[in-house]
């Protein structure tokens, strides 16, 4: 087992240097206060209305068949591959190529898992309409289950663990699709929802008239539709990465392996506590913003501004895993007898990417929240109403930097 690693891997990142941590924190604070005073007073983003059409129609069906074959190939490794994790490509294909790779792929090309999702090969025949109140809740639960397997389960990289997860995931998606059609996949498939949320930051998106367009990531973010469970989904992403950040701290390692509760129980409690902490902070700050701004029902309408913060932290967290353990996936898949270069990126590069990703996410989040505030709140209260939102983002960003610096 690896407490250090995200499911797989033989190393983890060094703490970022003190200077990087303070420079990042300072930048986050300055940007937030400048945004309050200097950004526009009337909403500028047009969300799903914006964008320049591009004439590309990717062949969805063949791509999904290819992705189904890759799934079967991965299952083959998991079922028949060697028992030693380091020799089995299966866990690397799941954790590194698929789970971590989904972030850069979606950032570049938009909601790629919608295009590649093999469950979309099933016929889109809904027996009944998807209840609106279900929203993204199934996706939030699915992401929680996957991050639990990755970060808490006793043997995250064991083929049996991954096969059990994939079997459960497959059964849920199959049932959901047979009952509710593809609407289920759009809202309930954890990986499709994940990829689509991250993909809202990409320059490629779909306009409200259905055209594939090039658009600014700010319009992309603005096009996120507030649905029940959206806040929960974002909180699961932020909270689980946060838990991953502190779970290698010596006090926590010691508590996990020597405490009276046992590691699975304590690990589960820690993961849930991290997610609840993120959610409580969100609820408190949005509540304060609503009180100051004199508006109600704000909670789902600001969830989009947390997406870039979560993505920034995901990039900071997984960058080195992708470039380092990605090599092992490549070597194992192609049966090459090479060595993984653990220092293909140095600590300086990793720290720089981490801080830039966290601060970049923060800046985009602040701008998105500002635009949404001036749209939703009465002009006289729009600036004051934003203060709790910025406090929230500063808390998340400083929390993220602290984890990168201290743990």
């Amino acid at each position, binding site marked *: *087992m*690896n*407490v*250090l690693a995200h499911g797989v891997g*033989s*190393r*983890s*990142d*060094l*703490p970022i240097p003190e200077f990087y941590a303070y420079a990042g924190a300072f930048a986050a604070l300055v940007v937030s206060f400048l945004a309050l005073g200097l950004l526009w007073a009337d909403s500028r983003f047009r969300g799903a209305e914006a964008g320049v059409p591009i004439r590309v129609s990717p062949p969805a069906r063949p791509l999904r068949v290819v992705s189904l074959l890759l799934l079967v190939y991965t299952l083959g490794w998991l079922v028949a591959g060697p028992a030693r994790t380091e020799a089995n490509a299966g866990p690397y294909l799941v954790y590194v190529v698929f789970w971590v790779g989904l972030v850069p792929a979606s950032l570049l090309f938009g909601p790629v898992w919608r295009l590649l999702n093999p469950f979309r090969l099933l016929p889109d025949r809904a027996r009944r309409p998807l209840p609106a109140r279900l929203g993204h809740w199934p996706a939030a639960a699915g992401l929680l289950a996957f991050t639990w397997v990755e970060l808490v389960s006793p043997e995250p990289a064991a083929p049996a663990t991954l096969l059990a997860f994939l079997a459960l995931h497959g059964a849920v998606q199959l049932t959901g699709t047979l009952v509710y059609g593809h609407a289920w996949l759009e809202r309930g498939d954890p990986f499709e929802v994940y990829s689509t949320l991250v993909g809202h930051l990409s320059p490629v998106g779909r306009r409200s008239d259905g055209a594939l367009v090039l658009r600014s990531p700010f319009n992309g973010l603005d096009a996120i539709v507030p649905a029940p469970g959206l806040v929960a989904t974002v909180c699961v992403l932020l909270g689980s990465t946060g838990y991953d950040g502190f779970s*290698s701290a*010596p006090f926590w*390692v*010691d508590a996990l*392996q*020597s405490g009276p509760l046992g590691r699975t129980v304590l690990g589960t409690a820690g993961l849930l506590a991290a997610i609840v902490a993120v959610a409580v902070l969100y609820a408190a700050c949005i509540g304060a913003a609503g009180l100051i701004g004199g508006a109600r029902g704000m909670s789902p309408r600001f969830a989009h501004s947390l997406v870039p913060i979560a993505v920034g932290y995901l990039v900071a967290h997984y960058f080195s895993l992708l470039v380092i353990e990605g090599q092992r996936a490549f070597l194992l898949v192609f049966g090459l007898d090479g*060595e993984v270069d*653990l*220092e293909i990126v*140095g*600590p300086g590069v990793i720290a720089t990417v981490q801080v830039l990703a966290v601060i970049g996410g923060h800046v985009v989040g602040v701008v998105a929240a500002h635009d949404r505030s001036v749209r939703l709140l009465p002009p006289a209260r729009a600036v004051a109403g934003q203060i709790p939102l910025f406090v929230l983002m500063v808390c998340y960003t400083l929390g993220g930097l602290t984890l990168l610096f201290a743990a």
Partner: protein
Amino acid sequence: MTRAGVVLACLLLAGCGAQAETHHNPGTGHEVSTSVPAPVAGEARAEITIAAGKVEPPPGWLELTKGQPVSLIVTSDVADELHVHGFDIPATLVPGQPVTVRFKADRTGVFEVETHDSKLVLLQLRVR
């Protein structure tokens, strides 16, 4: 274990310490021995005891600079397999006998030292 016992163990192993073995990670020369070697100047050292599933001292960080020699001296009360991640060094732990793993920390990052059967993290190496 008494000094005489250590000497005896060394003699039995024919050639005190220096049980170098090649492995699947060329470039990381290391040695595993059932003795406590004399400290080398500039070497980082950690002595860890595992008793009844508890690690003493509790798992912490060992701060290293790249290229620094390291000695990990591990005594376990049960038979187990020690593994230094990243450097990919395995060592067999014999009950009650201190086992020394010596290597050069020649790559940067955070690496975990753990036991395979009891699944305990003994230490995290922070190599800068």
